[in-house]
């Protein structure tokens, strides 16, 4: 097996393990990353939502927000499955785009 193939298998394994990124923080009762709160959470944190943030916070509606498949019920198991799915989707798109860029950038050096 080529090294690249082994590495892709490694990445696939990481994707399958990605729910740990949900489960472990939940076990420790940890919230999200510092400084990545939703705008509304600031009401709880400081009693108000900064005005500029209010305007910008909902600028973009991402299709797979927070690595969850839309329409999913809550519950750790369901969210974990959604995490794995979005991990594979994200890996595929990221790898595809990076590969495309690399090929465009390296086109002069094709023979080497």
């Amino acid at each position, binding site marked *: 097996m080529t*090294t*690249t193939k*082994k590495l*892709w298998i490694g*990445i696939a394994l*990481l*994707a399958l*393990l*990605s729910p*740990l*990124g*949900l489960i*472990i*923080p939940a076990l420790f*009762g*940890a*919230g*999200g*990353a*510092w*400084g*990545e709160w939703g705008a509304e959470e*600031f009401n709880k944190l*400081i009693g108000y939502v*900064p*005005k*500029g*943030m*209010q*305007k*910008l*916070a*909902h*600028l*973009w509606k*991402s*299709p*797979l*927000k927070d*690595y969850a498949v839309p329409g999913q019920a809550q519950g750790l198991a369901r969210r974990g499955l959604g995490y794995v799915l*979005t*991990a594979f*989707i*994200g*890996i595929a*798109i*990221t*790898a*595809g*785009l*990076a*590969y495309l*860029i*690399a*090929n465009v*950038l*390296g086109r*002069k*050096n*094709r023979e080497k």
Partner: protein
Amino acid sequence: MHIPDGYLGPATYGAMFGATVPFWAFASWKLNKTLKARQAPYLALGAAFSFVLMMFNIPVLGGTTGHAAGTTLIAVLLGPWAAVISVSVALIIQALLFGDGGITAIGANCFTMAVAGGLTGYGIYRLIAAGSDRKSRRRVVAGAIAAYVSLNVSALLTAILLGIQPLIESSSSGQPLYAPYPLAVTVPAMVSGHLLLFGFVEAAVTALVLKYFQRNEPAMLA
């Protein structure tokens, strides 16, 4: 450390795009000259690896979480400019598709994690590893230290970008318009977690994968 939309005011997020775009341009130019066709799959692997690594949230004291990024590893194996591009790709996809990091903050996040992370990691690695054999232990140690430092540099830069917002973007009555916490709060909050935990995770991951490459594909450590 992905900064969401609404945390940075236009002066900052605009400036960060201004700071990052030249690095993207230069990295593209550099790769155009040096990237070999056979390396393209590795750029894809690097971007994918960075992407999935950032999904592993690790809890830290204080009730928040953080993650490793893999930037230094990519810089060591493919060069700093490949790291800049591949980690930027991962970050942009994360922002666009998954709402992880804001759209206005893409310049800032790419600067802190891809550019600063990639260049610091590479620089420190080259400094410590200088002259050593590519299969030597020194290479692995160099990678680990470089990864640790570079992740903390990214965290510090993020903390600074957030912490200056109350200073430069406040209403006439003094109320912060964007990220409301000052440097005295953001710097300890962000840097502590990365100094005490995430930096070590990044270092360990980098060391492990470098060891793997030393055994299986040492040519990539040239």
